[in-house]
């Protein structure tokens, strides 16, 4: 709420700059309007036609994924382009890419929550769902890359007939714990936030079946303030726990590379650099999804221009953090005096994969610079294009890290050019099918916006009298 002195003296552009537009929610007078605009989507008998088109397309890609995985299981990992010296190819690139995408959700829901950024409410549900589906896609790749997927349970510390335990000194096992914990906590966070909204949908549902199904998952929520009290505290605790968690997950993913002695991988800035990159790509994906969704489902008053502009700023900022890491790596490669390290970076920029490297730099570091201009931050088509550029750039970042460090390793005799097979490419494409199928189903049946939280940032949600203050001491 705009409360500061002399608010009337400010011009419109100043107001925008101060992040104080009249309200976070526009054109919605009452709480009921919010309920109506969010719930009516799931209650509608039909979706917009484009939903069906997209869903069919997504299903096709999902089918491709299924076929590729079947092919992989029945034939073996030789169907991929992975070989010596590039033993880590597409699967790890895709894994890191998807985990990265999965970072924005928890960041928005947890970190921005802790920083009291009210604007998160418009997009948090949305991006949490995105997180969970992205982590599903991410988890897929390490699971299938083991080749013999039926022994994947070996990564868990459960007793087995070999009397062996997993090797906890392996960063790949840390991944299992990190990604597993991340998925669990994100799911809890997402579901917990959704329960009051599911209750809303339950109470609005017209058919018995819907009342029953939403009712089951709403757990009997009745909005009791005694419940809200513990609920809010638990939410805060989860946010406080999810914040270091979100940092740790991509740090652990970065350890996969950084604990190795491979030049270009073994560098200390990797953990924060990967985290910044993850947030960067995650926000880009939130934009890629929310721009069409807000148009399609009529959320322009909830996901406002202000939200989009803020996300552009986050993208620009994290893009520069990533650029900082690129620069530091380059400088240290020279400064360290390590010739292998130096060679790796020259090889990245000017070697056989220079095309990938420069794609990465232009997409990640150069393209977001346009967001310095306010007009660019308000031009929806441009933002959409840039967000896609960033997604591409961040995929290439992982590709560059993985492949360029391996393809010319310590032994020049084993140098080789990695090229993916068609199965690699179709599996990557198929993972998008999985992601979008889940996402479109989410859009169809579940509240896409955190209804109760959006209501909470509306001006009429705040008491005006001097009611009993909570004594915190």
């Amino acid at each position, binding site marked *: 709420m705009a*409360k500061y002195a002399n608010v009337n003296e400010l011009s419109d552009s*100043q107001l925008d*700059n101060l992040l104080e537009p009249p309200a976070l929610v526009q054109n919605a007078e009452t709480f009921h309007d919010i309920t109506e605009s969010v719930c009516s989507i799931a209650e509608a008998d039909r979706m917009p036609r484009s939903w069906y088109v997209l869903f069919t397309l997504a299903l096709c890609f999902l089918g491709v994924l299924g076929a590729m995985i079947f092919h992989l299981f029945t034939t073996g990992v030789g169907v991929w382009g992975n070989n010596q010296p590039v033993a880590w190819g597409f699967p790890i690139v895709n894994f890191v890419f998807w985990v990265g995408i999965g970072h924005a959700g928890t960041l928005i829901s947890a970190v921005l929550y802790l920083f009291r950024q009210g604007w998160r409410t418009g997009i948090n549900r949305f991006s949490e769902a995105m997180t969970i589906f992205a982590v599903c896609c991410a988890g897929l790749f390490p699971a299938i890359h083991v080749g013999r997927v039926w022994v994947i349970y070996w990564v868990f510390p459960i007793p087995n007939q070999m009397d062996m335990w997993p090797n906890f000194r392996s960063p790949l096992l840390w991944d299992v714990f990190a990604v597993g914990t991340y998925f669990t906590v994100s799911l809890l966070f997402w579901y917990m936030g959704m329960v009051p909204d599911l209750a809303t949908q339950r109470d609005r549902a017209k058919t018995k079946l819907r009342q029953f199904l939403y009712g089951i998952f709403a757990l009997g929520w009745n909005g009791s303030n005694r419940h809200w009290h513990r609920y809010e505290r638990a939410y805060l605790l989860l946010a406080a726990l999810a914040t270091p968690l979100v940092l740790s997950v991509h740090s652990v993913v970065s*350890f996969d590379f950084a604990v190795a*002695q491979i030049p270009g991988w*073994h560098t*200390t800035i990797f953990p*924060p650099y990967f985290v910044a990159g993850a947030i960067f790509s995650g926000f880009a994906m939130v934009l890629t999804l929310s721009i069409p969704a807000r148009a399609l489902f009529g959320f322009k008053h909830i996901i406002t221009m202000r939200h989009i502009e803020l996300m552009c700023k986050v993208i620009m900022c994290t893009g520069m953090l990533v650029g*900082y890491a690129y620069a530091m790596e380059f400088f240290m490669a020279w400064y360290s005096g390590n010739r292998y390290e130096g060679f790796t970076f020259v090889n990245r920029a000017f070697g056989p994969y220079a095309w990938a490297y420069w794609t990465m730099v232009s997409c990640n570091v150069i393209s977001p610079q346009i967001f310095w201009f306010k007009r660019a931050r308000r031009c929806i088509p441009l933002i959409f294009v840039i967000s896609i550029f960033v997604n591409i750039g961040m995929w290439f970042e992982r590709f560059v890290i993985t492949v360029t460090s391996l393809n010319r390793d310590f032994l020049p005799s084993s140098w080789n050019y990695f090229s993916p097979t068609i199965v690699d490419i179709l599996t990557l494409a198929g993972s998008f099918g999985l992601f979008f199928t889940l996402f479109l189903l989410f859009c169809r049946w579940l509240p896409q916006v955190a209804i109760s939280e959006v209501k909470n940032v509306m001006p009429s949600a705040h008491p005006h009298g001097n009611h009993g203050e909570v004594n*915190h001491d």
Partner: protein
Amino acid sequence: MNHTAPTYSADFATAAASRLSRAGFLCGVVGLAVAIGLGLAEGDHMRHFWLSYLIAFAFVLTLGVGGLFFVLIQHITGAKWSVTVRRQAEFAIGTIPFLAFLALPLLVPLFSHEGVEEFGGLLWSWVHPHGDHAALITSKVPFLNVNFFVGRFVGYFLIWSLMARYFKNASIEQDKTGEHELTVRMRTRSALCLIVLALTYSFAAFDLLMSTDPAWFSTIFGVYLFGASFLAIHCFLVLSTLYYQRQGHLKKMVTIEHYHDLGKLMLAFTIFWAYIAFSQYMLYWYGNIPEETAWYLIRITSPWTNWSWIEPIGHFFIPFLGILSRHIKRKPPLLGFWAFYILVVHYIDLYWLVAPNLYPDTVPFNGVEVFALIGVVGLFLWKYGQQAKQHSLLAHRDPLISDCLAFQNY
């Protein structure tokens, strides 16, 4: 919704600031004099004194530049909670030109030919590469040479001073005019400044501290120092606010909620520091590549072992548990204790980063360090107090100040 906007008045703490300033000056002069005296008595070409001076200087630099980071971040994020404490950070950044002056004595160990035979340079052995790594270090000469080094520092301080001047003056200007446009402009400019600051500060960290072991390198080193500086400035703000409140200022303007927020950020950056420090350690420990682990090897073998334990335990676990509870964050004197504690371990951290490089076989720590720290911090407070003497302790016409006082931690 049409509240009549409350107005706030300026809060001049001339007397309190003067006292601080005078005490600082006294400490500075006495401390440095004693430190120099003790250093001379050691007869080691003043190497120990210069080490102590370097660390003490780095300590106040983290406060000054940390303050600059703080101010820039408050502007770029449009933070409301911090408006009533921001002015104190602005005083801290006002000392940056003076810090450049404090850096001047470091030219002595840089140019001195004392002890060249033994060490290659009193603080920076790359000045005259010698020993096992001479060839490696020589290959870094395009970057590590005295002229470029001095040139870089001139550049850093020029840039930092300009930024500091702008952000301090604009804020003070707002006290007079109340112009909102200033807030808008500061926000716009903070973005670019932040990038420049991040780059310059990283390189300053490499130059000043990391290059004391010219063979060693770490890409995260800049971030390490960011983390430490953020932590330091928040602690400093808690202590400074406590001081002024005890002197009868800012009574109503800095509430429990602000302490709570500062406490939360102290906790957050304690964790962030640990995260960065652990990442660096773990990756080098795991990789176990000789040129990288050597740095840690010195530190985890006697006589530095015990000092190294201070890092995880004293710099992370103890303060983490100390300020985890909201009850502690909401009790200013307790929080003040922890802020002071963290500043102490922050100094130890800086010392630990550098001293083992110069003294692998002994822990030279003694009165020289203590008095040098008292001296340099005293001089820093002297300038800090002088800043505070002239201006209001409160950015009382900042457009966000009402919001700053309105929020509550749920």
